[in-house]
């Protein structure tokens, strides 16, 4: 296989401390002893490397949950959805992101934007939850 490449969050190592800094007066930097590698963003964001996928959001119906058009979601397929989870669900073959609500009137896929209606699904069994969104990546640079 020539194309195998595993999922990596691009350039995830964020340098936190720089070892062997230039030191005045010949004293070794006291920080050196505390250098213990860099922060690993993948480790922080991805709880299970086998079941986690990154997807891109298209649309504005989840803005109330802090999810904007164009954002990336870190989705764990193996996580069990509960009431309140933001899920990627399969509706009529399309992947849709909504908040899952388990209510007395049945399962509801709730939008987080008053301009969008909620979808009443009925039974949980008739709904395919593709995965549970764990984190939203939102770029702040223009």
């Amino acid at each position, binding site marked *: *296989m*020539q*194309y*195998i*490449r*595993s*999922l990596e969050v*691009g350039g995830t190592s964020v340098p936190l401390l720089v070892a062997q800094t230039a030191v005045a007066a010949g004293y070794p930097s006291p920080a050196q002893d505390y250098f213990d590698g860099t922060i690993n963003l993948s480790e922080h964001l991805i709880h*299970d*490397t*086998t*079941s986690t*996928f*990154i*997807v*891109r*959001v*298209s*649309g*504005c*119906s*989840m803005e109330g949950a802090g*999810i904007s*058009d164009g954002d*990336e*979601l870190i989705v764990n*397929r*193996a996580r069990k959805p509960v009431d309140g989870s933001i899920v*990627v669900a*399969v509706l009529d*073959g*399309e*992947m*849709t*992101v*909504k908040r899952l609500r388990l209510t007395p009137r049945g399962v509801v896929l709730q*939008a987080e934007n008053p301009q*969008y209606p909620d979808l009443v699904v009925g039974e949980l069994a008739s709904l*395919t939850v*593709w995965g549970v969104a764990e984190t939203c990546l939102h770029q702040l640079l223009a």
Partner: protein
Amino acid sequence: MSAPASGLNLCPPREPSPEEYIAHVDVNSFYVSCERAFDPRLIGRPVIVLSNNDGCAVARSDEAKALGIDMGAPWFKLAPTAERMGLVAKSSNYELYGDLSARTMQLLGRHSAWVEVYSIDEAFLGVRGTLPELQALARRMKQDVMDHLGLPVCVGIAKTKTLAKLANKAAKKNPHLGGVCVWEAVTEEDREQLLGRLPTVEIWGIGPRLAKRLMGLGIRTMKDLRDADAVMLRNRFSIVMMRTVLELRGTPCIPLEEEYEIKDQLIFSRSFSTPITDAHGMEQVLGIYAQQASARLHKHQRQAKVLSAWAMTSYYNTQDNHQPAVTVALPGPTADPLLLTRAAKALLPKILDGVKYARAGIVVTDVRPTGAQETFEPFVNRHEARDIGPLIQKIKQHHGVNAVGLGLAGMKTGPEWTMRREMMSPRYTTHWDELLTVYAS
């Protein structure tokens, strides 16, 4: 604590230890299942995945099989009626399949420390336990791969690899088993019946040619083979055949192999969508393969000592069949793209103008860890000393694989033989600009 009377009696008496078994796990219609994992609209529809250059069907969903589409069916024949049949064809998306394969294997590794990755979509695992424990383990593995990756697998467990493969086949073909089968837990009556029904050609390692020769000896079914005279078969065939017989009887003869990250050879080879007919075109192809080999060697911190390059005309081209090949000893163990490219070019003088080459490739052999052998000073390569290989890799990582290349392989315009992949799904898991889109609308 009462001290043991003698050193021989350290272990408290207990039940005989659960025995060791082998599990065979594979993903059902792997390529199709990978496509479905990211595109649920494909579930329940007939789907095929095409070979390189969109040539022929290399994977079929059950629905496609039911339409009578054969393995290897050429796409140009299916295409005109595909829409009417509701058939969906996908170009092979090796990036996606490779990633999901690696994840599957990683996941299986959580159930056993002893995993032999046998191919992109199947693995053997060493497992132990009582029969009910094994049943539960098999179901757990199946559920786990479905939960994490959305891929359906079948699991066969038995005393030997050959029987584990067979149990897996049984699991696939009998829906009531729910995709898992522990061979020893099947009633003897059912096992005998199955072995008596299946032809030898369905045994792991027995191809049509061997099956035909066995037929000549009156050995038609798996049962016939199991009950045949193993020594006679060894004499008539080989030790391999005898092993198969013993494995069918439940005696493990084919051990689990340790997994090597990189084998001692690497092959880079492709069929061309348009045949190459001159040395110029061939030079470009070989250059690209050499650089791929270099990249892979660098990635795994390996060096090679020998490079072979070859080209061949199509199997169907009987008129001017030509298969030139060269083998070049590299000046020392190396992963340098310049050296590998130069070595591959040794094939060029053998390329005949006007002959239609359908396939070419390079193989690097005698691969060893970088620095495993001291290089004599005169052979130290000056490019390598300047780290040109890693530099090219870095540029490619930042700016895409087509950003830079050596010689003709670096040409901006795609050469004619570039793979045809017209119906390829996005590379969802390996490219930021091809992520799966989810709709908030």
